[in-house]
């Protein structure tokens, strides 16, 4: 069995941990972020350990553990990982080496919309980072914006996408700023607009923000979406329509791509250094 490598991604809303044997995903775990990244990391790693033990393996067997995400440096300081890599490189590597993606022509553009920030990543033919853009503008472009709108609409994050797909006349949000969009959503609700049309308006506003990021680095096929917002079918479809590219499926939960990429980079490092554990 090829060496085991771990990847741990402590983000702003959720934290994920993944164990790979070569490219094969053998275990994964996900928790909501507590207010301290190290505590969060310990919790998600122990959950991963339970799964590993159920298949007769053990976290300590890992040849390399790489941390990424907001809390990556604190996780390394607490010696829960060997070293850390930015979530941008990890999402790039994770998507490029993902099970179904690797088989096809290969991913070149990754649109990652997380809870607190959004990024678009371009990788070269070897899956290495070639360019990236992050939302320096106001936060209307991050997953947090959808979370805010769901509270106002009174729906859960998972219901927002399907609700929006049922829209017949999507409303057009007149503002880019999430403060005003929220007020507008309340206005539309008061005036009895169909909730599906409002939900679609929210998802299109989100797609607008994503596309302005994509324009900064340009798009080259194959394109994929990762991060929590990728699960919103309405946002994904609108971005696909506007870009003229279908999002390829990675054969991997979009939220795990960061941790998966970290583990892949770990295995590449192990392979390069010829280590055998």
């Amino acid at each position, binding site marked *: 069995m090829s060496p085991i490598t771990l990847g741990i991604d402590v983000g702003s809303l959720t934290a994920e941990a993944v164990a790979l044997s070569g490219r094969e995903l053998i275990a994964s775990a996900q928790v909501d972020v507590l207010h301290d990244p190290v505590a969060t990391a310990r919790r998600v790693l122990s959950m991963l350990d339970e799964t590993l033990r159920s298949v007769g393996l053990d976290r300590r067997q890992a040849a390399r553990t790489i941390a990424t995400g907001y809390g990556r440096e604190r996780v390394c300081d607490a010696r829960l990982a060997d070293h850390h*890599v*930015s979530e*941008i490189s990890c999402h790039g590597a994770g998507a490029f080496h993902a099970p179904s993606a690797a088989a096809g022509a290969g991913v070149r553009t990754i649109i990652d919309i997380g809870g607190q*920030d959004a990024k678009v990543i371009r990788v070269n033919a070897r899956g*290495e980072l070639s360019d*990236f853009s*992050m939302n320096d503008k106001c936060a209307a472009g991050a997953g947090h914006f959808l979370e805010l709108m769901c509270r106002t609409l009174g729906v859960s994050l998972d219901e927002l996408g399907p609700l929006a797909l049922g829209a017949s006349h999507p409303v057009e949000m007149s503002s880019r700023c999430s403060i005003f969009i929220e007020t507008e959503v309340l206005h539309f609700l008061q005036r009895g607009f169909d909730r599906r049309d409002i939900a679609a308006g929210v998802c299109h506003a989100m797609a607008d923000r994503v596309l302005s990021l994509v324009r900064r680095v340009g798009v080259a096929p194959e394109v994929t979406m990762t991060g929590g917002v990728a699960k919103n079918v309405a946002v994904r479809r609108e971005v696909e329509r506007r870009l003229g590219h279908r999002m390829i499926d990675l054969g991997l939960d979009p939220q795990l791509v960061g941790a998966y990429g970290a583990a892949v980079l770990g295995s590449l490092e192990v392979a390069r250094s010829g280590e055998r554990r």
Partner: protein
Amino acid sequence: MSESMGRDLAGGHLRTWRDGGGRVVGYACVLTPVEVLDAAGVLPFRVKALGCSKTDRADARLSRFNCGFCRSCLQLALEGAFDFLDGVIETNGCDQLRGMFENWQYVAPAPWFHYLKVPHVVTPESLDYLEHELRRLAAALERGFGAAVTDERLIEAIERRERIRASLGRLADLRERPAPAVTGSEALSEVIAGSALPPAVFQELLDEAIDRFERRPAPPAPARRLLLGGAAIDDVELVRDIESLGGAVVADTLCFGSRGVSLELSEGWRDAPVRALAERTLRGSTCPRMYDELPSRLELVLATAARARVDGVVLVHNKFCDVHGIDNALLRLELEKRGVPVLALEREYGAAADRGRLRTRTQAFLERIGGGR
């Protein structure tokens, strides 16, 4: 009331200068030729706002759409941190700086004030105009502080600054070595300190520092070599942060860093010192406020990058700064076209502002150019 960091950096030297009856005049933009102030026997002090973390007084005058550098300087001014200045020189470095000075003078006028107007284009007529402006500045200093700015005193002042420039050249060489003997943050700290010190004192401290850097064992070669460009940045913390991620800042074109002090005088400048200063300010200045001089700016970055053998260029601008914000975007297009990887960073001016966001971007950039830890 927060002590002006610049004054603290100068520490006791500024106090001894003032205790000895010395006068201090504040300026903000490096277009201001400090030699004219030296020649008038006045200590030039670059107004800065290092470590200013709150801007509530300034936000009542300027708006949140004005850059953090201007708001932080006005905050310290309104808090009285610059009351020790005997006079202030406004330069039309940029629109927002003009607004900052106009508010400063409107609310708390300095005892002596002069407005140095620098053209945005390089033509024979704008050169004549700037020479005339420098003579008006000299006359105003004379009226305000009594010492006549003769050619002899100006030549002497320029020669003293040229010696400092030579030392700064040695410092730059140390920084550009394959295994740099001095870090980017150390080099920037020297230049920043110099902007608040009497020239003779700065020369002495600088040469001592250079000897110290040369004597100490050279650290291992850095993972990646970077050039730091853009401007209105005198935040050593930012450079320290970048370098802690494995990207050594071996060269810079910051206006508060090397660019401001590396401008050369033309041959035979002693024959017409005022004219030479005017020419250096206009033709020599590779500041993005010179709206027809992109070729010379691009050349400076490319030449510096080649000489310092950098792997990538980081261009920084303070949020809301159009002059550098747009220029960085243009330089990025030009450099990336020539295969030079560029990271454009936008940040709020101020202590440890946006630290988390910038570390992620810098680490990703270092990973992109094959570096990082």
